[in-house]
């Protein structure tokens, strides 16, 4: 991975936090880094962090693009529930894996298209536009499953959640693949620059010739797709679609991952890899809390405390008082991109 122009210190809070949380887990639980093979699949707490972090990491990939356009997508959790419900119900009805995958990914694309049209064409504020699907989507998923947990036994679909490729769990493989494809799309083309431009100033980027409605619809569609993939993984993992709980509140974790990753909610610069790192920080904390033996009442407090520290390290006001290497600039400030690749890290 190469780091972008402003120097490695820009990414320091994120990587530092991830390493610190992992080390803290290791101190609490000495076998944290122990990895062995179990039924041809890597097995260990560190693998759990990657595996369990995959759904939020996937959501964060899509969410990063949306947030870079100064938007937000609150519906991703509900879209997960819909895609999972479609997958499990169709599998139960005897459809083959290709049809199931196509249908549930199409459901995600459709949800994204709906959000995109509301935001780009009808110009409804993203938080409100996506709130509609956040509320309605879970209802749609419940209609699909008829209010039940639809279980299935198909090993083909279960493979997406529980299988492995070269000993690496499938959710991790899928996340890396989607991250690579997304990074290629936005960094190898001008798309990333256009997304940042729309996020900084929609009007002037339109004036400069960017087809802003198309860019906006594209990011919401991509976000819907990422959510559908995450929904498939979660459903395949428990071999059942739980429309009430699949992806519940995960939109918040995804937004948090993006923000922890250093992408500003005010749009513009974004870092895809850093958002995934943000998701891993959150999951490493979750796994650490489970391993530590703390009482469950402390879960949220510990999580909030660590997040506060990570976000404080990024605070523009606070970083002014911290010694920092030359060339680094404080995080979270909104500045128009100075160069096409000024935003974030490149994979």
């Amino acid at each position, binding site marked *: 991975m190469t780091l972008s122009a402003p120097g490695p210190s820009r990414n320091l809070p994120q990587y530092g936090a991830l390493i610190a949380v992992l080390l803290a887990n290791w101190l609490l639980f000495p076998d944290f880094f122990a990895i062995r093979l179990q039924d041809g699949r890597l*097995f260990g707490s560190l693998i759990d962090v990657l595996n369990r972090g995959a759904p939020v990491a996937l959501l964060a990939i899509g969410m990063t693009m949306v947030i870079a356009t100064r938007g937000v997508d609150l519906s991703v959790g509900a879209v997960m529930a819909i895609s999972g419900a479609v997958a499990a119900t169709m599998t139960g009805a005897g459809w083959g894996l290709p049809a199931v995958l196509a249908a549930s990914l199409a459901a995600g694309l459709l949800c994204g298209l709906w959000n995109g049209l509301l935001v780009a064409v009808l110009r409804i504020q993203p938080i409100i536009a996506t709130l509609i699907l956040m509320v309605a989507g879970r209802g749609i998923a419940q209609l699909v499953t008829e209010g039940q947990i639809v279980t299935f036994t198909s090993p083909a679909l279960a493979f997406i959640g*529980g299988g492995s490729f070269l000993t690496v769990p499938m959710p991790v493989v899928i996340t890396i693949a989607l991250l690579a494809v997304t990074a290629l799309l936005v960094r190898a083309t001008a798309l990333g620059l256009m997304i940042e431009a729309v996020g900084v100033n929609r009007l002037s980027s339109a004036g400069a010739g960017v087809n802003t409605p198309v860019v906006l619809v594209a990011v919401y569609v991509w976000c819907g797709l990422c959510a559908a993939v995450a929904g498939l993984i979660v459903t395949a993992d428990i071999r059942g679609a*739980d429309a*009430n709980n699949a992806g519940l509140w995960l939109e918040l974790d995804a937004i948090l991952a993006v923000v922890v990753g250093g992408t500003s909610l005010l749009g513009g610069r974004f870092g895809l890899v850093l958002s995934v790192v943000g998701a891993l920080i959150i999951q490493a904390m979750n796994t650490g809390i*489970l391993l530590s033996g703390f009482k469950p009442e402390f879960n949220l407090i510990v999580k909030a405390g660590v997040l506060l520290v990570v976000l404080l390290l990024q605070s523009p006001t606070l970083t002014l008082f911290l010694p920092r290497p030359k060339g680094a600039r404080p995080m979270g400030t909104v500045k128009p991109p100075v160069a096409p690749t000024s935003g974030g890290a490149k994979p």
Partner: protein
Amino acid sequence: MSRKWVISAATAAAALFIGLGAVQAADAKKLVVGFSQIGSESGWRAAETKTAKTEAEKRGIDLKISDAQQKQENQIKAVRSFVAQGVDAIFIAPVVATGWDSVLKEAKEAKIPVMLLDRQIETKDQSLYMTAVTSDTVHEGRVAGEWLAKKTGGKCAVVELQGTVGSSPAINRKKGFDEVVAKNPGMKIIRTQSGDFTRAKGKEVMESFIKAENGGKDICAVYAHNDDMAVGAIQAIKEAGLKPGKDILVVSIDGVPDIFKAMSEGEANATVELTPNMAGPAFDALIAYKKDGKMPPKWIQTESKLFTPDTAKEEYERRKDAY
């Protein structure tokens, strides 16, 4: 007073009288019960509604169900509309414990008995409802614990998957189980965490427990506050290369079809049923009350029955359509 007015008034009165007579005649034949249901947030809840319908049919009762979609305001509206319709009794599965007093007073003034299903309410005036049909969630935990103590001879290192932190079934099911653990010095809860009553979280928490306890070798049993978390835990145990039901015993509460399926496959060991038939006992109490004015007890406790793999296959067949 004009003659016309008198005639029309008389006609109206006659019509009203005949109408009332008709209603009363219908009453004698068929009881009408309004049921304000919370919603259909879980498989169990859907089963409760379904069972209420079949139990009403069995007894020839006309059951009107109103789905509140998890909102108390909808339940209050439903109760008011039942009062306006003049039903014979109102069943409520209250979504929250407080805020019922004023609407229940309206029902009381209309002399319509109110029965609570599945959950209790908090009120100073106990006369606002006739009876509550609920299970004893502390007892459920106790039954699960006693089974495990008996099965393992009172020696077992247990990991516990709690329900949502702060929810009353989670608190009570823990309490009942803890009572049994306290009585058996050989029993110990070595890890306890919240799995939020869901499969996904149950699986994730169990994965960590297994790693934290020497690859699962130090765990004798997992006690889950509901079956869904147990189903998730079973998958985690399998993926760790252990045998659920043998290497690690699995005991949980609720009695949903999927746990019976797991039991019939030898992957779970026991479940304590939370019966979805809350309406049946309420109907019986209502019929007895209407017949000879017999007041039911304030609390009708449903049975917390333990099921083991012996009967799992038949139970699964019996249940899979009810849920």
